[in-house]
C-alpha cells in the first residue's frame, strides 16, 4: 500500500519515499526501453528503405513463397501438436492407462531437447547420408524419402513442442470441476456427449494457450528450418543478415514480427474469452476415470511411439556417432575443445546476472505498484521475448555497428541480446516471489527503525532470493541453448557449445557434435527441473 501512495502523484506531498518511488520508476523504465532497442532499430531500418524497393521486395515471388512456407509451417505444427498433445493429456489425466505417471513424465520430457538438436539427430538418422540409409543400402534401397523440407520440419518441430499443448491441456483437465460432468450425466448425457459438451468447451482456453505457445515457438525457431533446408522467415533473415543486406533483412524482420503480433493478439483474445484457470489446479473433484477396457494396453502404443521418437532417438543417434570416428571426407572440422563449453558458461552466467539485476526494478514496480502504468515496463519487457532471436541478432548487429562501434564484436552485445530475449523469465519469477512477500513485513521493518533500503535488503531480499535464483537459473540455461543470436553476434574467436555444434552440423561431421549435443540436452533437462520446481506440476493423481 505504501508504494502505491507514493507512486501515484498527490499534490503537495513530497517525502523521501516519493523520490525513491520515482527512482524506481525511472530505473524500470530505462530497462524497458533498453530491451526494446533492437526491435525499434529494426523498425527504423525498415523505415529507411526507399518505398519502391520496399514494395519491390515485399511483392516478389520468393517473399510470398517464404511467407506461405512460414504460415503453413506454423499452422501445421500447431495443428499436429494439438492432435498429439490433447489425446495424450486425456489419456494420462482421465483414463486408466497403465503407467500413467510414467507416461505423463515422458510426454512432457521432449521439451528437454532443443529443437535443433532434434533436427540434427533426425537428419543424421533419416537423412540421405544417415543411419537409416546406411542400414538400408545393403538391402538395395538406394534412396529413402527425403527428410528435408516441410515434412521434416513439421515432424521435428511437432515432436519437440507438442508438450506445451500437453501440459496446458492437462492442467486444464485437472482443474475442471468433476461435478459438472456428473451433473451432465444425470441429465441423460453419455460419457462422450458429456465430454463434448461440458469438458471440451472448458478445455478450449487451456488448449489454446498451449497451441499459441507452440505457434510462437515455431515462428521464431531458426535451427530446425535451417537444418531441414526449409525456407522460412527466420532462415532467410539469417542469410540476409550475414550477407549484410540490411534492406532485405529489415523487411523480412518486419513481416516476421507482424506475424508474431498476430499470434499474440489471438492469444490475448482467447485468454480473455476464457478464464486463466487453465493454469490453476484448484484441486476440486475431478471427473471420473474413463475405463479403456480392452484398449488399455493398445493405447500405450501412442505415448510409447511419441516417446521413442522424441526421447529415445536423439540421444541414441548421438551416442552411435560418439563411437564412430569422423570420416575424413567431411573436410575435418575443428576438434571440440572444452574451452567452448567454458565460453558458453561464461556468457550465459553474465547474461543471468545482468538479467536478474535488470529484472528487480521491473518486478518490484509491477508487484507493488498500483495501476496499469506500473506494470507497463514489465509488459514491455515481454516484447523482447516474443521477438525471434534472429531478429534481435540482426537488430543488435546494426545497432552495434552504427551507434556504438566501440561495442561491436564485444561480448557485451551478445550478453545484451540474451538479456533482451530472456529478461521476462527473470522478471516473472522475481515478481511472483515479491507478490508472495507480505507488504506488511516491509512496514514492520520500518516501524522497527530501518530505513526503506535497509528494510528491503534485510527483509524483502532474503525472501525474494529463491525467486531471483530461479530466474537466474532459467536465463542461464536458456542462454546456453540459444542459437540464432549467438551465431550472429559472437565475438571474433569466441566459440561456444552451440556455435561448435552448428559448425560441425554444416560440415556434416556428426560424430564430433555428439558430446556437446548431449551436454546441451543435459543442460536443457536442468532448466526443465527448475521450471517444474517452481510451478509444482502435479504428476500424481
Amino acid at each position, binding site marked *: 500500500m505504501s508504494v502505491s501512495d507514493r507512486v501515484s502523484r498527490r499534490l503537495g506531498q513530497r517525502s523521501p519515499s516519493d523520490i525513491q518511488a520515482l527512482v524506481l520508476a525511472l530505473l524500470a523504465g530505462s530497462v524497458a526501453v533498453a530491451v526494446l532497442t533492437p526491435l525499434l532499430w529494426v523498425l527504423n531500418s525498415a523505415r529507411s528503405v526507399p518505398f519502391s524497393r520496399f514494395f519491390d521486395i515485399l511483392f516478389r515471388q520468393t517473399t510470398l513463397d517464404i511467407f506461405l512456407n512460414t504460415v503453413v509451417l506454423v499452422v501445421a505444427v500447431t495443428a499436429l501438436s494439438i492432435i498429439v498433445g490433447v489425446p495424450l493429456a486425456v489419456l494420462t489425466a482421465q483414463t486408466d492407462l497403465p503407467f500413467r505417471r510414467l507416461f505423463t513424465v515422458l510426454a512432457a520430457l521432449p521439451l528437454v531437447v532443443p529443437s535443433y538438436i532434434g533436427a540434427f539427430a533426425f537428419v543424421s538418422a533419416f537423412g540421405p547420408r544417415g543411419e537409416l540409409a546406411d542400414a538400408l543400402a545393403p538391402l538395395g534401397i538406394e534412396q529413402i524419402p527425403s527428410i528435408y523440407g516441410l515434412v521434416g520440419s513439421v515432424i521435428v518441430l511437432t515432436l519437440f513442442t507438442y508438450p506445451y499443448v500437453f501440459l496446458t491441456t492437462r492442467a486444464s483437465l485437472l482443474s475442471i470441476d468433476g461435478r459438472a460432468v456428473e451433473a451432465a450425466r444425470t441429465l441423460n448425457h453419455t460419457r462422450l456427449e458429456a465430454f463434448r459438451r461440458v469438458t471440451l468447451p472448458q478445455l478450449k482456453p487451456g488448449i489454446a494457450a498451449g497451441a499459441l505457445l507452440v505457434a510462437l515457438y515455431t515462428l521464431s525457431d531458426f535451427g530446425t528450418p535451417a537444418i531441414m533446408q526449409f525456407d522460412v522467415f527466420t532462415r532467410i533473415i539469417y542469410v540476409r543478415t550475414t550477407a549484410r543486406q540490411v534492406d532485405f533483412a529489415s523487411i523480412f524482420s518486419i513481416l516476421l514480427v507482424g506475424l508474431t503480433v498476430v499470434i499474440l493478439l489471438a492469444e490475448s483474445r482467447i485468454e480473455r474469452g476464457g478464464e486463466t484457470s487453465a493454469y490453476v489446479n484448484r484441486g476440486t473433484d475431478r471427473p471420473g476415470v474413463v475405463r479403456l477396457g480392452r484398449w488399455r494396453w493398445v493405447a500405450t502404443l501412442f505415448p510409447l511411439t511419441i516417446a521413442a521418437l522424441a526421447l529415445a532417438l536423439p540421444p541414441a543417434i548421438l551416442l552411435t556417432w560418439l563411437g564412430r570416428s569422423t570420416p575424413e571426407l567431411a573436410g575435418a572440422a575443428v576438434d571440440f575443445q572444452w574451452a567452448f563449453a567454458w565460453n558458453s558458461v561464461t556468457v550465459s552466467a553474465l547474461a543471468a546476472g545482468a538479467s536478474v539485476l535488470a529484472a528487480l526494478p521491473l518486478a518490484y514496480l509491477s508487484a507493488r505498484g498500483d495501476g496499469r502504468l506500473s506494470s507497463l515496463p514489465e509488459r514491455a519487457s515481454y516484447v523482447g521475448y516474443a521477438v525471434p532471436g534472429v531478429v534481435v541478432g540482426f537488430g543488435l548487429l546494426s545497432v552495434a555497428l552504427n551507434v556504438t562501434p566501440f561495442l561491436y564484436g564485444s561480448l557485451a552485445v551478445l550478453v545484451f541480446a540474451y538479456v533482451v530475449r530472456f529478461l521476462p523469465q527473470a522478471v516473472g519469477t522475481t515478481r511472483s516471489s515479491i507478490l508472495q512477500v507480505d507488504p506488511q513485513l516491509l512496514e514492520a521493518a520500518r516501524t522497527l527503525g530501518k530505513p526503506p533500503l535497509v528494510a528491503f535488503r534485510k527483509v524483502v531480499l532474503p525472501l525474494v532470493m529463491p525467486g531471483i535464483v530461479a530466474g537466474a537459473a532459467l536465463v542461464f540455461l536458456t542462454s546456453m541453448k540459444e542459437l540464432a543470436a549467438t551465431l550472429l553476434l559472437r565475438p571474433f574467436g569466441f566459440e561456444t557449445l552451440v556455435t561448435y555444434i552448428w559448425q560441425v552440423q*554444416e560440415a556434416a561431421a556428426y560424430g564430433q557434435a555428439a558430446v556437446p549435443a548431449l551436454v546441451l540436452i543435459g543442460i536443457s533437462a536442468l532448466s526443465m527441473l527448475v521450471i517444474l520446481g517452481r510451478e509444482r506440476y502435479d504428476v500424481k493423481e
Partner: protein
Amino acid sequence: MMTTNDDTRDIGSTGERQQSSRRRFLAAGGVVATGALAGCASLFGGDEGGDYGPPDYDAADAAMEAMALSEFQGSGAILEGRPAPGGRSIVDLPNLAGDLSIYLGGGEGGLYLEFFDVLEEVYPEFSYTAQSKPSSELAAQISEEAQANQLQADLFISIGAGSLGTVVEEEATRPLTAETVEPVPEAFVEPSNNWVGIAGRARAIPYNTDRLDESDLPDSVMDFPDADSLQDGMGWAPTYGAFQDFITAMRLQEGEDATLQWLEDMQAAGVQSYDNEFLISDAVSTGELDAGFANHYYALRVLNGSPDRPLDLHFTRGDAGSLVNVSGAALLDRDESAGLADVFVRHLLSAEAQEFFATRTYAYPMLPGVQPVGDLPSIDELETPDIDLTELSNTGPTTDLLTEAGVL
C-alpha cells in the same frame, strides 16, 4: 613490414645463420632451399641418404627433427612417386611471432587450420585465432566492419577471388609486399598486390562413372540444361562462394540474359540444391546424383577416402565451367599485425605449404616447382575462360540474378 622477432633477417641473406630452433625443426625434413635441386632424393618413404638441406643442426633437438616433410604431405595412393617440392622454404623465411586473427572463408577450414597449427608448433611465439564462415558472408562482414573502422581480424583468406575482389573494392585491404607475392604467376595476383592466390581451384563436373560416360557430358557448360542424360540428376550449391564466382564468370562471358536463361533452364531440368560442394561430390559418388558442379578437389577427397567409388572429373572447355579460381589471402587494413600477416602469407606460399595444399587439399599449387596431384591436368592443359579474376568481385548482379531466377 618485417616481423618483430629478434631473429629477423632478410630473405636471401645466407650469411651467418643462427641456430634457431625453427631451423632445426625443419632441417631434418630435408626441404630444399631456394634454388636447390631436389632431383635425387625421394623423401617419400625414404630412409635413403641425400641432401636434406643445411648440415648443421644440434643433435639434442632430435625430437623436433622428427617433423619431416611427411608432416606436410598428405597420404594415400594418389601421392605415389611424387617429387620433392621446389620453391622458397619456410626455413628461409623470417620468424613468425605474435597473435594473428584470421577470417577464414570456405568449407575446407579444417585442413587449412591443420597447416596453421603446424606453424604454431614451429614458431612457439606465434599463435593465431581463426573464425570460419562462408567467404561471401565474410566479404560482406569485412566491408561493413571496414566502413565503421571496426575490423576484427588481420587477414582474410577466401575460397574464391570474387570475395577477395569485393573487399579490395571496399578499401578494406592493404597491399602485400612485393617480396611475398613474387613467386606467384601474374594471373593469380591482384594488379596492386592487394590479394594473392594461394591455391588454385578449377571448376569441374564430378560425375558418376557407373551412370554416365564422359561422352555424355557436354563440353560447353551452357549445354548442360538440355543434355538428356543429365535430366533430374544434377546438383549445385548456389550459396557456395565458388559457385557464385562461376556464375559471375558466366555473366561476364555470356551476358546477363543468357545466364538468367541458363539458371531457369537448369531448374527446369530438375537440378537439386545443396549447402556445399563437398556434399555434392559425395552425393555423386554414391549415386544420389549423376553429376554436379563443384571445385575439382572435392572429388579427389572423396576418392582418397574411398578409392573404389565410381567418380571422375570432367572439365568443360573455354567457358565459365572451366574457370580456374584461386583461394587467396588479403591483408586487412588494420594497424596491429600487418607485418605479421604479410610474412604469414609468405609462409603460405612456401614450398612446404604449397606441397601441403597440393597433397592434402588437392588444390592446384601456385608455385611452378610444385606439381598438382594425381592425374590432374596441369593448369596449362586446362582451357580456361578469358576472364580477369579480379572481375569476379562483381557479385552484386550475380546475387540479384540468382534471386531473380529463384535460385537464392
